[in-house]
């Protein structure tokens, strides 16, 4: 097995009185899909945010590609999120003023890709995610499933190494949820991206290669022998 892509160890994080993470640990290999499961409030999202360099843990180590995210400057982490990570959330992630195409092109533009080229690539991803028809529409004018596929397209457009998805199908019906998961995992496999998938739905988690359970801020790594 090759060296892990992202390793987190001994993560602690508290919000005021609430302890959200206690000695959490996680390892993600190149190209694998890891489901993070656990009951509500167990610390899944916090773990995901830590792994993605959005939230700084109080203690612990998160190494991506040989660099420790915990000690990294905010600017460096932002750059990393821009270039190496992609994000899909439950909802409310598209900029309402921009068209879907512009939304997908946004990460590229943030990475200084010229507008024309960025929008062209964005268009290809919309096609790939089977939502070409909404390219010119605003997020308010598309369905939840379409919006979510646009979000997946946006997460993938920079060809990130890791995609972080927090309840990506949470607001969708089964059919659309499955569709988003199928497209997300297929695209991730094709581009070699690893996926960290926070979900509470077993059928969604079944798209993963492996699961990690979080309870009361602790991770349980269940390496069940096949």
């Amino acid at each position, binding site marked *: 097995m090759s060296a892990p892509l992202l390793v987190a160890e001994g993560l602690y994080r508290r919000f005021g009185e609430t302890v959200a993470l206690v000695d959490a640990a996680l390892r993600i290999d190149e190209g694998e899909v890891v*489901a993070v*499961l656990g*009951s509500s409030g167990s610390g899944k999202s916090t773990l995901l945010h830590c792994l993605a360099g959005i939230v700084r843990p109080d203690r612990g180590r998160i190494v991506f590609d040989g660099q420790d995210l915990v000690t990294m400057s905010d600017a460096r982490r932002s750059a990393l999120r821009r270039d190496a990570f992609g994000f899909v959330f439950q909802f409310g992630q598209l900029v309402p003023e921009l068209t879907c195409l512009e939304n997908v092109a946004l990460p590229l533009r943030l990475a200084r890709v010229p507008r024309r080229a960025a929008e062209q690539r964005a268009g290809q991803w919309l096609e790939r995610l089977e939502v070409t028809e909404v390219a010119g529409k605003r997020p308010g004018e598309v369905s939840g499933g379409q919006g979510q596929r646009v979000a997946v397209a946006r997460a993938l457009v920079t060809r990130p190494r890791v995609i972080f998805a927090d309840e990506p199908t949470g607001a969708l019906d089964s059919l659309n949820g499955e569709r988003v998961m*199928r497209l997300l995992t297929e695209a991730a496999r094709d581009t070699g991206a690893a996926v960290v998938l926070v979900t*509470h*739905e*077993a*059928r969604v*988690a*079944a*798209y*993963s*290669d492996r*699961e990690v*359970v979080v*309870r009361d801020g602790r991770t*349980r790594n*269940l390496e*069940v022998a*096949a």
Partner: protein
Amino acid sequence: MCIVLRMSIGQTFLGLLEATPRHGYDIKRRYDEHFGHARPVAYGQVYATLSRLLRGGLVEVEAVEPGEGPDRKRYAITEAGVTDVAQWLARPEQPEPYLQSVLYTKVVLALLTGRQAAELLDVQRAEHLRLMRDLTRRKRDGDLAEQLICDHALFHLEADLRWLELTTARLDELAAQVRR
């Protein structure tokens, strides 16, 4: 279902004994209370099971009180019995429909014996997920008929898991009831 029950009744008794040594009638009463539902276990079944466990060295007679009848003996679990229960609890059940009775039994026993019921659920979930992953993979590669069949199984397995999760969430409530 009954087969399943019979298969696990020994472990269930062991679990009940792990909390404290009991007389046969006490075991029966407890069993009926938690797991018997509409079908209480027969006395004969109780003593047959206990003697099987005694033979297997999983329980021992802790004390014999003076007097008549089979109820004079008080049984206690042995070291080997504790191990047996632990192994049983830690072993995920083969995912299949209508599993909840066994899982329920396991959850209650785990609580009764002061074990982490959540652990058990995690193990079981992992087992379920493994099967569900297989089904998902098959679904992805299969034709429509295959997909529909897989979906059917997936939804059932998910229902089981959901129930399991709900149970986990209610552990506190349950614990209070069980320890009463």
